[in-house]
C-alpha cells in the first residue's frame, strides 16, 4: 500500500503525514542512507546541497557528496548525491532513500532512482503526471514554488531560496540538528544580515512545512556521532593544489580543462595567499611581490613545455590537465624522460576516449600515462585514492621527479578531484625538507675535474645535473636527440644504448620510493582484490560485506608505478586476484601483467566505466561473479 498522495500535485496541503509503519517504509535506518538532489545547473543549488552535507559532517557522521553535472553551463539536469554511512563507507550509492526532484525534465529518471520504499520529495506546486507515480515509493509533495513565491518576490532570490527550502525539508525528514544548520548559515552569511535572514527564513519554511505535513522524522535518521573530530571536507583538486604549494612548487603552467581546472585555479588562489610578500623598496614605498609564477598557456603542449623549461632552470614546476591534455603532452613527456628533466603532471581523469564525457569519471589514462610518448619510455605514476593522498602525493611527486629527474604523473580523477570528501585533516611535518635530488652547486662543481651530465650514476642510476646561470663549469647541452653518457651528441649504438639502458634501470629503481600499496588481509582469504584510486571506498565496502557473508578476501590498493615487489608477491600468493578499476580495457590489470610478469590467468577484472563513480553493489556483484566456483 502506498502512501496516499495528491495525484494532481496541485494541492499540497492534502499531503497526509506519513504513517511510520507504512508497508513500504523500511525499518528505521540510522546514519545509513543516501539522498539525491535533482536540479538544473546554473540555478544555485550547490549551496543548499552543501548545507546538508556540512550539517551532516558537523553532526559527526561519515558522509560524502558527489556532484553529477552536465558538460554545459546552465539549464541542464544536474544531480548531487549524499551518502551517509556510519561505518565510513561512503562510495556512491546506486539507489536512493530520498530523492529531491526539483527538475521536472528528469522526473522519470529521478523517480526511478528511488529505492523501493524510499521517498520522493518534489515541488507539488506543479503537476506530477500520474503515470510517473510508483506504488512502492512515498511521494512527499512540498509546494515550494507557491510557498516561496509569497515570501521571495524577486525571481533570482526566489530560485536560490527555494533551494535552501528543500534543504530545510530534507533536514526535517532526516532529523538533522537544526542548531547545526543555523550555526552554519550564520557562519556562511556572517557578512550580510540580509542574506543570513533570508536563508534562515527559507530553511525554516521548508523545514516547518515538512515537519507539519510529513511524519517526521522519517525512518531514516541522523544521529550525532563523533567520527569527524579530526576530519575535513575537501575536494581532491584543492588538496592537490595545497600539496603543490607545500612541496615548494613556484611555477605552474596550465590550460583550462574539466575536471582539472580547479587544481591550477586553487593553486593560483593559494599563491595569492601564501606567496605574496610586501616589501619596502629603497624609496620607502611598499610593494607586493610574488614568489611564484602561474602561466596560463596557449595549449597543453605549451603548458608542459613551460614546466620542462622551468624545471630545467631549477624550479619545482607542474601542470594539471585531463586526458586530452595528456595526449597532447606525449611528445614532450618523451623529451623530459630522455633528457631527464623533472616534471610533475597532474592528470585528473575523465571519461574518454576523445572528448568523451568531460564531466564524468574514469580511470582510463593508466596505460597511456605509463608509456606515454613514442620510443621506449616509462614514467613514474602515483595513484591517490582521496584528497588526503592528493595532498601528500603531490609532495611525493615533486620529490620523486627531482630525485629521479623524470616526469611523474599523478593520476587523480574527477570523482576525487571535484567531489566532496571527508578525510583526515591534512597534516604537515615542519621538519620536512624537499629532496631536490642530485643538483650540483657551483661549489660542488669546483671540486670535480669535469662535469658530464649523464655519467657518475648513483645506486638508483641517477646522474647529477646542473642548472643554467650557476657556473659555466656545469654547462652542458640538454638534447632530446641521441646522446652518450657524457652528454655529447651521438649516433653510435654503444653511446646511445648505455644511456637508455640506465634509464630503464632508473625507472625500476624508483619502485622502492613509490608509496607502498595499502593492504587489508583477512584470515583464510584465498583470493585477492586489487584496486587503485577512487575505487577504494566501494571496494573496501564490498570486501567488508563479503567477509561478513563468509567470503574473506585480501585487499591491495596500488598507489604508484613502478610496482614494488609486494605487489607481485600479493598476486602470486593468491589463487586468483580480481582487479577492480574504472575503465573498459582493464588497464591496471594490463600494467600489472606486463610489469610483474605474473600469470595473466591470476588476474581477473571487475570494470565500471559508465562515467558515474563506482558503486559498492557493482563491486560485490562483480567479485561474486568472478570468484564463483
Amino acid at each position, binding site marked *: 500500500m502506498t502512501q496516499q498522495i495528491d495525484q494532481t500535485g496541485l494541492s499540497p496541503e492534502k499531503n497526509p503525514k506519513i504513517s511510520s509503519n507504512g508497508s513500504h517504509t523500511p525499518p528505521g535506518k540510522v546514519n545509513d542512507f543516501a539522498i539525491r538532489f535533482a536540479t538544473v545547473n546554473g540555478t544555485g543549488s550547490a549551496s543548499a546541497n552543501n548545507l546538508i552535507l556540512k550539517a551532516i559532517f558537523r553532526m559527526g557522521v561519515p558522509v560524502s557528496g558527489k556532484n553529477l553535472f552536465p558538460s554545459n553551463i546552465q539549464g541542464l539536469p544536474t544531480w548531487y548525491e549524499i551518502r551517509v554511512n556510519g561505518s565510513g563507507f561512503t562510495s556512491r550509492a546506486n539507489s536512493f532513500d530520498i530523492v529531491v526532484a526539483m527538475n521536472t525534465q528528469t522526473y522519470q529518471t529521478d523517480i526511478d532512482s528511488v529505492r523501493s520504499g524510499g521517498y520522493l520529495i518534489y515541488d507539488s506546486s506543479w503537476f506530477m503526471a500520474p503515470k510517473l507515480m510508483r506504488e512502492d515509493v512515498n511521494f512527499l509533495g512540498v509546494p515550494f514554488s507557491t510557498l516561496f513565491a509569497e515570501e521571495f518576490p524577486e525571481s533570482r532570490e526566489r530560485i536560490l531560496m527555494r533551494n535552501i527550502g528543500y534543504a530545510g525539508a530534507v533536514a526535517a525528514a532526516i532529523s538533522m540538528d537544526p542548531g547545526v544548520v543555523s550555526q552554519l548559515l550564520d557562519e556562511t552569511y556572517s557578512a550580510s544580515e540580509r542574506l543570513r535572514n533570508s536563508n534562515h527564513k527559507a530553511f525554516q519554511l521548508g523545514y516547518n512545512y515538512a515537519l507539519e505535513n510529513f511524519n517526521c522524522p522519517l525512518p531514516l535518521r541522523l544521529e550525532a556521532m563523533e567520527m569527524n573530530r579530526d576530519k*575535513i571536507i575537501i575536494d581532491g583538486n584543492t588538496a592537490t593544489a595545497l600539496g603543490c604549494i607545500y612541496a615548494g612548487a613556484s611555477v605552474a603552467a596550465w590550460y583550462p580543462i574539466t575536471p582539472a581546472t580547479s587544481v591550477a585555479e586553487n593553486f593560483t588562489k593559494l599563491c595569492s595567499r601564501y606567496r605574496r610578500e610586501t616589501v619596502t623598496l629603497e624609496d620607502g614605498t611598499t610593494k607586493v611581490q610574488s614568489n611564484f609564477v602561474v602561466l596560463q598557456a596557449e595549449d597543453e603542449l605549451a603548458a608542459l*613545455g613551460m614546466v620542462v623549461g622551468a624545471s630545467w632552470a631549477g624550479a619545482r614546476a607542474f601542470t594539471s590537465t585531463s586526458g586530452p591534455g595528456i595526449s597532447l603532452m606525449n611528445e614532450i613527456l618523451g623529451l623530459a624522460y630522455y633528457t631527464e628533466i623533472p616534471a610533475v603532471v597532474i592528470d585528473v581523469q575523465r571519461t574518454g576516449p576523445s572528448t568523451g564525457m568531460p564531466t564524468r569519471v574514469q580511470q582510463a589514462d593508466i596505460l597511456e600515462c605509463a608509456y606515454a610518448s613514442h620510443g621506449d619510455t616509462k614514467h613514474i605514476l602515483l595513484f591517490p585514492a582521496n584528497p588526503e593522498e592528493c595532498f601528500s602525493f603531490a609532495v611525493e611527486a615533486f620529490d620523486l621527479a627531482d630525485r629521479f629527474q623524470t616526469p611523474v604523473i599523478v593520476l587523480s580523477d574527477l570523482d576525487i578531484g571535484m567531489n566532496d570528501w571527508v578525510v583526515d585533516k591534512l597534516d604537515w611535518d615542519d621538519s620536512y625538507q624537499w629532496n631536490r635530488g642530485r643538483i650540483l652547486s657551483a661549489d660542488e662543481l669546483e671540486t670535480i675535474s669535469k662535469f658530464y651530465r649523464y655519467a657518475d650514476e648513483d645506486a638508483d642510476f641517477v646522474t647529477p645535473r646542473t642548472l643554467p646561470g650557476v657556473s659555466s663549469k656545469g654547462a652542458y647541452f640538454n638534447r632530446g636527440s641521441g646522446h652518450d653518457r657524457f652528454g655529447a*651528441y651521438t649516433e653510435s649504438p654503444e653511446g646511445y644504448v648505455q644511456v637508455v639502458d640506465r634509464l630503464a634501470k632508473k625507472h625500476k629503481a624508483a619502485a622502492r620510493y613509490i608509496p607502498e600499496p595499502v593492504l587489508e588481509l583477512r584470515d583464510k582469504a584465498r583470493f585477492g582484490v586489487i584496486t587503485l584510486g577512487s575505487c577504494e571506498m566501494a571496494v573496501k565496502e564490498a570486501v567488508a560485506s563479503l567477509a561478513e557473508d563468509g567470503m574473506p578476501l585480501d585487499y591491495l590498493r596500488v598507489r604508484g608505478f613502478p610496482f614494488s615487489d609486494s605487489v607481485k608477491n600479493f598476486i602470486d600468493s593468491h589463487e586468483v586476484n580480481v582487479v577492480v578499476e574504472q575503465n573498459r580495457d582493464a588497464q591496471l590489470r594490463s600494467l600489472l601483467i606486463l610489469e610483474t610478469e605474473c600469470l595473466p590467468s591470476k588476474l581477473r577484472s571487475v570494470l565500471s566505466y559508465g562515467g558515474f563513480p563506482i558503486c559498492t553493489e557493482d563491486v560485490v556483484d562483480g567479485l561474486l561473479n568472478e570468484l564463483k566456483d
Partner: protein
Amino acid sequence: MPSIRKPLIPLAPLATNGIGLTVRDYEGAMSTLCAGCGHDSITAALVQTFFELDTPPEMVAKLSGIGCSSKTPTYFVSGAHGFNSVHGRMPPIVTGANAANRDNIYIGISGDGDSLSIGTGHFVHAIRKNVNMVYIIENNGVYGLTKGQFSPTSDVGSTTKRGVPNEVPPIDPVELALSLGASFVARSFSGDKKQLIPILKAAIEHHGFAMIDVISPCIQFNNHQGSTKSYKYIREHELNEIDSVFLRASDQITAELPADSRMSVAMHDGSVIMFRTLPDNYDPRDRAGAVNYVTEAKARGEVPTGLLYVDRELPDIHDLNNTTPEPLINLPFDKLCPGRGELMKFQESFR
C-alpha cells in the same frame, strides 16, 4: 662554429674583453652545418656580440627547437647551458625557464619552419606574453634539415632545387610580429655582421620579446636562381635604410658618440640605441609606421632590414606578475612552504 678547425695554438695572443675572456671563450663546438650555410654566420655574430658585451658565459641560456638552425646553439658559448628541444616548442620552454630564473639571458634560436609552421601558436603567444628573450629566426625559406621542402616563408615563385615553384603565399615574421604587438622587431641578413651585431646587442639588452628575423641562405636547398632567400637575391633586394649602433652605458663615457645620430632610444639600464640612418619620417617607436614601411617596401619587391620597431615600455611576464626580483629558483624552501601552522589555520574553513 666555425666549420674549419682553428689552429690549436693561436698565432698571436687574442684580445680579452672586460671580463678577461677572449673571443674563443664564446665559441662552441665545431659546426656540422654545410660549409657556407648562412646559419654559421649568425653563430659568428653571436660569438662576437657576447664577447663585446662582456657577457659571463654562465649567464646565457641557449635554447632551440629542431632544424639546422636549431643545431647552432651548440656552436656558440660553450660555457652556457643549452637546450635543443623538440620541433616548434622552444618558446614555451623558454617561457618556463624565464619564469623560474629571470636573471639568465635567454637566446632562442629557431628556423622558419620551426617558428612559423609547427611552432606558430607558441611563437604568437610568446610575443603576446612578451617573454624577455632574444628570439632569432634563422630564416632560409626552406626546411633545411629535412632536405628542401617549402617552409611558410618560402615566397610565391620561389622554387625547389628541382624547379617546382611554391604557390602558397608566405608568412612574413616581421609583419606578423608587428601585428601582434611584439616589443622589439628587427630584420637582418646573416651576411651582414655589421648590421646584425648592434641589433643583437640591443635585443639582448631589450626587456621583453626581441624578435630578429635573420635571412640566412641555405646553400644546399635554397640558394639557387628563383629563390628569394639566396645570397644573391638578398644582396640585390635588401633595403638597408636603417642603421643603428648600440652603446652600453660604459661605452658612452669612453667611446665617441656617433656624430651622425638621427635618433636615440635609451634602454632601461642606461645603454642606448643610436639610429644613424633612418628613412624619412620613420620612427622606430611607431608601430603603425613600421607596418606601413615594411608593407610598402615589400610591395616594391624590397626586403627592408634593420631594427624596425622597439617598445621599451611593454611589461613582461614578471612585471605583470610583480615577481620578486630574486630568481624563483633561489627562494629557500621555507619561503615557499607555509608550514604546519598555516595548514591548520587554512583547514578551519573546511569543516
